[in-house]
């Protein structure tokens, strides 16, 4: 790999384009770590938010009105307030109460900033997922479930075998969109000093004064990450596609 790094060093000498993340070992290392942190953050949040979405959608079908209301207000709170302010609220606000005494008797936060970022972003995306899953379920007409029940399926069986597969296919495009937004939202963790890609890049360009280069690298990386996610989800969508369900694009 050394020749590749050398090429970038030459590029700097010849044209002034300063991509230290390639030819400088230290910067290379920290940028790679930042990239990994971003991917980690995105992956954990995706899994957690989908889980929250499933649980929330299930709770919304509960007979207890209080439970349904609780889910409703959870959704409304997280949807109608800025995710950044939610992050501050949790990290600075709630976090200021959750202190334990660490070594030396100094108060230390119980929950790290990375954990707060994961929790806050997961609950944020989870709120949207609850709505998405719920809408998918409601878009399956009652007539289909009735037909299943008439064939002798139990309620649970009909849900599992008939409704959920259809509901899932219906809501997949919206879910994909939400997951893409989640990946983009990981940049918010910058505000609480989580060492993800944007934060690390900020460090690098402050040290090396190569703002345009780092900006471009950042944009390419994020567009690339999102592109990979969209591609993967698109392939999955195609693989489980059933004719008649889903967007029919007509280009004119």
């Amino acid at each position, binding site marked *: 790999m050394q020749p590749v790094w050398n090429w970038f060093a030459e590029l700097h000498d010849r044209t002034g384009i300063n991509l230290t993340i390639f030819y400088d070992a230290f910067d290379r290392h920290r940028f790679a770590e930042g990239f990994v942190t971003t991917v980690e953050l995105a992956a954990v949040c995706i899994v957690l938010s989908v889980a929250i979405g499933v649980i929330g959608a299930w709770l919304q079908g509960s007979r207890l009105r209080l439970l349904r209301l609780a889910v409703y207000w959870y959704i409304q*709170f997280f*949807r*109608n307030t*800025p995710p950044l302010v939610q992050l501050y*609220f949790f990290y600075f606000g*709630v976090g200021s109460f959750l202190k334990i005494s660490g070594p030396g008797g100094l108060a230390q936060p119980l929950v790290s900033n990375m954990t707060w970022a994961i929790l806050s972003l997961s609950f944020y995306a989870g709120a949207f997922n609850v709505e*998405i899953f*719920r809408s998918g379920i409601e878009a399956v007409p009652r007539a289909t479930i009735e037909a299943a029940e008439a064939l002798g399926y139990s309620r649970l069986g009909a849900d599992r075998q008939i409704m959920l597969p259809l509901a899932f296919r219906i809501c997949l495009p919206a879910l994909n969109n939400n997951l893409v937004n989640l990946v983009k939202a990981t940049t918010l963790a910058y505000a609480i000093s989580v060492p993800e890609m944007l934060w690390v890049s*900020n460090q690098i360009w402050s040290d090396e004064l190569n703002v345009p280069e780092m900006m471009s690298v950042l944009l390419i990386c994020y567009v690339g990450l999102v592109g990979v996610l969209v591609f993967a989800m698109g392939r999955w969508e195609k693989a489980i596609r059933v004719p008649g369900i889903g967007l029919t694009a007509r280009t004119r």
Partner: protein
Amino acid sequence: MSRRLGWLEPLPQTSDLPVLLPVVERPISGANTDRKFCPSLARLRGGYGFWIVAALLLSAGVAGAETGPVHPSIVATLIKWTPLLFGGFLFNLAISAFAMIGGTAAGVFLGLGEIVQFAPVRAVAWLVTHFFRNAPWLVLLFFCMYMLPFQVTVFGTTVPLPDWVKATFGLALPVMANVAEIVRGAVQSIPSSQWESAEALAFTRSQILWMIILPQCVKRMLPPWMNLYAILAMDTVLASIVGVNEVMTLTGDALGAESRPELLLPFYGYILLWFFLYCYPIARWTIRFERRFAVDR
């Protein structure tokens, strides 16, 4: 009227999400009224806002209980800082208005560019749209703050570009891309039978687009466009990260001036409340619009 695909329709856009949903081909009626698990939104009124305020005051009270009687109460402090913070909040709303207007204007043209018959223009429009849709808003903001010049000379006069103008421009870029997708989605959701019958009547393509297709699109575009605005209004706080003096920066200043850790929760909760009070009605309106337009069909 137009041929329905029956119940096998994609996700109906009657969900009131301020999330960037793909624009649905055709909203369906009937299927989602079959199962109603959500409490009817119509029944929930401002009475619940009372509970939010109560919860807030309670948290302020709890936090206040941790301090001694020496400092002024939390509520009093909140009230003291309100004029300043509210001014900042209005500034956020102003930024959101400018970014929305600029982004929408550019986005309409970009969206039309995605459906012209000339392939190179379509390709360029597609690239631009997807680039700005896939880039995180914060990164675009950083990009604009650093890369845009601090002043620009036009027609001989030098116009300074303050930070907030650059931030507005940075926010308008993703708005433009999303509006383009909304426009494109709306145009493609008009049944092709409309194109066919207009062609049979010997209209030219641009006549069909401007006189027949686009007027029908406006209604369809309104709910996702309003959703987009809600998202934008909330994302104006990102400008605080890049140094623009808006409500979050001012809140940080106020907290720094007061230097009391028990104020953190109430202050951020207060700002959350303001955004909630602004965005929740928008979300409700959006649902109401959607229901009305769905019924029209």
